[in-house]
């Protein structure tokens, strides 16, 4: 049982529930304390040690049902099961086990008449008689679920099913499993019976179809358990390298998940540091003054309180057609970092500019971004947008402010108002310009990027998630 607990934990890990070895030990303790008799109790108990958030708990419950619910094909229904592990576990969920088993045997194929028909047919067909000799057909005919379950497990090992990586491999592995089970005999018999026009043909075909279906289900389940996590990991890797505006619409929600994951990673990397820096030094004058009352003994120490700086981030995003997709991801990232980042104020512009921070208070990040796109989208005018920004926020920009501008700097040949950007540059702690275009095309055509760049502390190309993550990582370092 312990080994099946360990392989269950493997499954959890492939579904992105992080389980440490210590937690595995805890899980073993829990299982031995609670015993294996009450399925629901065991499930709740294991959930408490293995799942650490409500989301993980949902994944856990799903995996638990999938994994321990494996009653291998419907061959492996309860009865006098002697096979160890999953099958017997699965049964405990149903208190009506006895009636289930009874029903199963009642509806199950009564082997005798089929057996007779087939034996008769086998006299005329050597392939069928060979098939009748095989243990596979024997098990099928007698509906021997335990033996089938064992054979299935054996075939899975031979086919190397646990190495399955991608969903495209399902067919291939199904075939390998069937071969390992000895389906060849059935196929031979079918061919031969077809040629001789034997009446036993449909019966054999039915057995073949049942077998194939079971194997397919088995492979499908194994895929969901083991390989799905791997192929998701693969997907994530690809997505984080793709240009953000090339990402297909169907993958958008995946990207959002990915961003949240990255944000969590960055948050946990940066949060403790901020706290440490807040610690003060010894405030000698006050300590001395306090000591006077105690005859000059300075046991009551007073610490200089760290000046509470309020770093502030202003995000200014171009939401015109060409850049909107990137703005969306930047904002999503920034707002996913609420826990560690200081207060973020966001502004959106294309022809004019407005503050959009309150959208994020009232709506979820996705909805807010949709609304903003609708309200501010249009032809870009950097000059007037910068003017708007200056009148809205210039007074709030001081040496603790980080301003992030996201835009392609394509100004449709309008007045760039570089002077405004320069004054922002002088007042702020840092001004970062993120441009989704590649560095080579900066300054070409109507792009004012080279001029704007001169008034930035830092400018960078930013068009996929990896770059975005790196930049925000730097940002977090520098705002502390």
């Amino acid at each position, binding site marked *: 049982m312990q080994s099946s607990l360990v392989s269950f934990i493997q499954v959890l890990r492939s579904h992105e529930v*992080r389980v*440490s070895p*210590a*937690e595995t030990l*805890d899980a073993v*303790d*829990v299982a031995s*304390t*609670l015993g294996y008799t009450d399925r*629901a*109790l065991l499930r*709740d*108990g294991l*959930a*408490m*040690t293995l*799942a*650490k*958030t*409500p989301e993980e*708990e949902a994944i856990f419950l799903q995996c638990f049902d999938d994994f321990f619910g494996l009653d291998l094909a419907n061959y492996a229904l309860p009865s006098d099961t002697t096979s160890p592990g999953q099958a017997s576990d699965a049964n405990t969920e149903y208190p009506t086990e006895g009636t289930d088993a009874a029903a199963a045997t009642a509806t199950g194929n009564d082997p005798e008449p089929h057996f007779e028909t087939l034996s008769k047919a086998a006299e005329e067909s050597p392939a069928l008689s060979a098939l009748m000799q095989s243990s596979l057909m024997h098990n099928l005919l007698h509906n021997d679920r335990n033996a089938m379950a064992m054979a299935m497990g054996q075939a899975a090992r031979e086919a190397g099913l646990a190495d399955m990586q991608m969903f495209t491999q399902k067919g291939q592995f199904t075939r390998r499993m069937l071969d390992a089970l000895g389906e060849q005999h059935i196929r031979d018999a079918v061919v031969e019976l077809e040629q001789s026009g034997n009446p036993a043909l449909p019966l054999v075909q039915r057995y073949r179809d049942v077998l194939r279906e079971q194997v397919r289900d088995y492979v499908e389940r194994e895929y969901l358990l083991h390989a799905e996590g791997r192929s998701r990991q693969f997907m994530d890797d690809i997505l984080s390298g793709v240009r953000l505006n090339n990402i297909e619409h169907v993958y958008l929600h995946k990207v959002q998940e990915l961003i949240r994951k990255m944000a*969590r990673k960055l*948050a*946990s990397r940066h*949060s*403790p540091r901020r*706290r440490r820096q807040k610690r003060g030094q010894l405030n000698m004058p006050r300590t001395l003054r306090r000591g006077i009352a*105690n*005859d000059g*003994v300075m*046991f*009551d120490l007073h610490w200089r309180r760290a000046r509470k700086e309020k770093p502030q981030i202003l995000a200014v995003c171009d939401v015109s057609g060409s850049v909107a997709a990137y703005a969306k991801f930047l904002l999503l990232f920034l707002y996913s970092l609420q*826990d560690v980042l200081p207060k973020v104020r966001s502004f959106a512009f294309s022809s004019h500019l407005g503050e959009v921070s309150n959208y994020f208070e009232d709506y979820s990040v996705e909805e807010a971004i949709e609304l903003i796109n609708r309200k501010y989208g249009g032809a870009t005018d950097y000059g007037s947008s910068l003017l708007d920004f200056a009148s809205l926020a210039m007074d709030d920009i001081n040496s603790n402010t980080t301003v992030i501008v996201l835009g392609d700097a394509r100004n449709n040949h309008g007045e760039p108002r570089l002077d405004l950007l320069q004054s922002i540059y002088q007042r702020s702690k840092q001004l970062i310009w993120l441009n989704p275009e590649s560095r080579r095309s900066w300054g070409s055509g109507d792009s004012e990027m080279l001029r704007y760049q001169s008034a930035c502390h830092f400018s960078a190309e930013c068009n996929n998630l990896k770059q975005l993550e790196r930049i925000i990582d730097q940002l977090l370092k520098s705002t502390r």
Partner: protein
Amino acid sequence: MKPEDFPQLASVQQIEQGFESHGYICSRKIATAVFLAFQLRKPILVEGPPGVGKTELAKTTALLLGTPLIRLQCYEGLDEAKALYEWKYGKQLLYTQVLKEKLGDLLQGAKGLAESVQRLHQFGDIFYSEDFLEPRPLLKAMQQEKGAILLIDEIDKSDYEFESLLLEILSDYQISIPEIGTVKARTTPMVFLTSNNTRDISDALKRRCLHLYIPFPTVGLEERIIRSRVPNVDERLRHQLVEFVHSLRQLDLKKAPAISETIDWARSLLLLHADQLETELVRSTLNVLLKFEEDIQSTEANLGNMVRECRKESASGETG
């Protein structure tokens, strides 16, 4: 705490019954968590929305076991001097003043500074001994002879450093005091940590705990809770009011009403001698359930329908 001393916690069913006798109706899962925590000597990290009975769980466990409940309320800036121990500076100072005169006697006949210091060394660190130690909740819980329930409330409000401070206590049930050494728990206390999820708890802390998430209860469970807490409410009203609260939780509210609010509301309805929900009655008592003006306003628009819905359901429930 040794399992044999506390037959109340011998099995999950017994815990459930024990809690019920103290007026705490819990789901099977909660009872399982308490059982496991007790058997495996692990702390429980209880998470869930405010007002679902997280703190109450610790209190009831203390009642059930008849052990003292030691509570540490967390807040930003909580540090070891307030959570673990503090030296009794005043007492130390007083004693030094009083003993000053003794100093002359002690050092009599000593030649030179070196010899005087030598003599002083013989006395050891009398001022940093257990007598001068002021135990704070965590240390106090370790010192209890017969075990205790330690409740570390709203851990998410504390700082990250404080979490790290807890790690030693939670995994080994001991506290290191530099001046004295390691203080081991006389009897392992049972520890409950609660969190409202305002920030993520560090993995190191989570790993040491059993993780219990208490969601809002199901209708059936909540009715049982009301029956136990406000026994005088009649069955029809109880069903209606619980249904109503559940339909409120479906709405997008700033703060959904929790069990404690349901109980308060049931009490208020009882005081008003209501025997079933009426729209006007609900409107005038809505402020017991909802704590934000926006929530009340957004709910009031649809109040009539919601009340009618609940009454219909309870009626069909009775006939069916």
